[in-house]
């Protein structure tokens, strides 16, 4: 992983569905917090997986501290709109009047891309050292648990798209500011993959699309759920050479070892392919977790792995 990833102000974590984006985002947040940073993980689709993984109720739109230095927020575009209007209009009464107008609610719900734009606006706001929200404390790093690769890229592009559409006016200015920040040096992009055919392909595709659509490079790839390499080829040969000797229970355990060896080998070949195709993009391995559920202890373990590579 790029040694500077934890020094970014804003990091987007994306990847194919089901590869563990939320887990990696939370672990990255914890790694930052352990370095003494004030970190916040942003969820964008009202899933609140981060806070629920800790057994709590969802955090909602409130910035909430889950562990020392690790905060979470779930971005609600409607609330973000309310906040934005209050900031722009100045008058709380007038902004509420607008916000509660049904026509206005219809318009913002139906305008293509509006939810995404509002989400990006809030992410940008969180990443500013001078917060727009009165009395809000700044964060050292904002980590976005972004949607899966295709839609993740879509949401990152939204400010520029609106800037193109609006041509002039305040939306154009605001969208340009957000876009410049997203493609600027303070923002990083981390793609999560699993060492399997399809996620590796999607990661490679995402890297090209990120370059083509946004003109920015992928900062790092985290390869999640790597099986341990417990058995060498020689070990496997030795077990194979037993030719089915042993009690049924011993044979089952030995069979499981051979299976693990085969799976780990398949994964390693996908990992090699990924590294080869990515050439200069840092690739970071994270272990498969044989635990019944994933929460703070598991994030802690993964944060440790991340810290070692940072």
């Amino acid at each position, binding site marked *: 992983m790029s040694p500077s990833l934890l020094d970014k102000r804003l990091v987007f974590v994306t990847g194919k569905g089901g590869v563990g984006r939320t887990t990696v985002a939370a672990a990255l947040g914890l790694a930052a917090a352990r370095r003494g940073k004030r970190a916040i993980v942003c969820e964008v689709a009202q899933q609140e997986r981060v806070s629920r993984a800790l057994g709590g109720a969802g955090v909602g739109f409130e910035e909430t501290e889950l562990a020392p230095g690790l905060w979470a927020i779930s971005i609600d575009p409607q609330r973000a709109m309310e906040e934005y209007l209050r900031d722009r209009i100045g008058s709380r009464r*007038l902004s509420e009047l607008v916000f509660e107008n049904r026509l206005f609610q219809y318009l913002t719900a139906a305008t293509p891309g509006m*939810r995404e734009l509002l989400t990006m606006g809030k992410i940008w706001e969180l990443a500013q050292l001078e917060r727009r929200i009165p009395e809000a404390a700044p964060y050292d790093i904002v980590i976005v648990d972004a949607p899966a690769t295709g839609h993740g890229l879509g949401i990152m592009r939204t400010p520029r798209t609106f800037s193109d559409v609006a041509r002039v006016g305040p939306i154009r200015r605001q969208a340009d500011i957000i876009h410049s920040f997203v493609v600027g040096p303070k923002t990083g992009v981390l793609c999560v993959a699993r060492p399997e055919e399809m996620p590796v392909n*999607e990661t490679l595709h995402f890297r090209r699309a990120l370059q083509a659509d946004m003109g920015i490079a992928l900062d790092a790839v985290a390869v999640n759920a790597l099986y341990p390499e417990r058995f060498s080829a020689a070990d496997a040969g030795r077990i194979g050479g037993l030719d089915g000797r042993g009690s049924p229970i011993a044979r089952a355990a030995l069979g499981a070892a051979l299976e693990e060896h085969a799976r780990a080998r398949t994964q390693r070949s996908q990992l090699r392919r990924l590294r080869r195709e990515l050439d200069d993009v840092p690739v970071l391995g994270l272990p498969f977790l044989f635990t019944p559920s994933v929460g703070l202890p598991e994030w802690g373990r993964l944060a440790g792995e991340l810290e070692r590579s940072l």
Partner: protein
Amino acid sequence: MSDLAGVLEGREVVVCAGPGGVGKTTSAAAIGLAMAARGLRVAVLTIDPARRLADSLGLEEIGGEERRVDPERLSAAGVEARGELWAAMLDTKRTWDELIERHAPDERTRDAVLGNRIYKELSSAVAGSQEYMAMEKLHELHAEGRYDLLVLDTPPTRNALDFLDAPARLSRFIDSRSLRLFLRSNRGSLRLLGRSSQALFAVLRRVTGVDLLEDMAEFFRSFGGMSEGFERRAREVGALLADRERTTFVVVASPAEEAVDEAIFFRRRLRESGLPFGAAVVNRVHYAPAEAPDAGVEGELVELVGDDLARRVARNAADWRALAERDRLGLERLAAELDGEPLVRVPDLDDDVHDLDGLVRVNEHLFGGTQRRTAT
């Protein structure tokens, strides 16, 4: 007949729903393959299939139109298809364009929408857009009646059942009285609006800039002209999806905690919406040595492979047993929710499934392997 085959028997539409990353596209393709093997003319509609799956079906060059999978490819994978397997990748932008072209009341409206900057920039990039397109395509193909069975792979959105609401949401919006007022409004007629709407317009101009506002107004005005067609199709798709004689929903999940949570959520959501649930398919189930090696077995392992390797073998067996236990608990939780409804398990296959051979292997678990001619 397997549980799943029973559920699919006689249906015209199968909707595969579930969270992202649990093998939903693979399950949809496998179901399509199995039903084609049984003699049906099947079309699989998928959103964004993995490259190699598309390649192995021979779909590399297609856009939104469905293409037939070459029967020789199926033969080569050991599948004797008595029917036909077709597949289409839904191309959001293109489906939108076709939709506008087909349903615009006149050329002026068509050109106004297709040329509108908001439409051009945002129609394909937007959440909800894919869902809507999936519904439109389903409606189109079902109305044409060229297929015995349509298998729909839903978009991997986190709120993956939103697509059910997409048509209704759009028609509700287009039909709203406020919108109609807005569309008719210009500076002169703003007085017709309530005081808050007048304030709103003043503020919107300030916040967005006039240019954007006018593009938005034009966008909605153009769409307003097509609202009847949208509403009618939304009603028809809704009726088709709710018809348990013709449609069944297959919820796809994995045994991991979060995926089971979402599968349970989906099952309840279908019940609340009055939609016909058929079966749950749980992919990537881990099985492990049934019994833990006890002290006696550890001694035996040491004898067989030596101290160091025996320790690693025992540790590995313990890890996999823990994983299998996690999966067992997840499946148990899901089974309790399903209360006797079909639950089909597919084991974790050693690499992920991304070609026809892989689909055939999946089908051995989904359908009991009856459609495979020879073992390879």
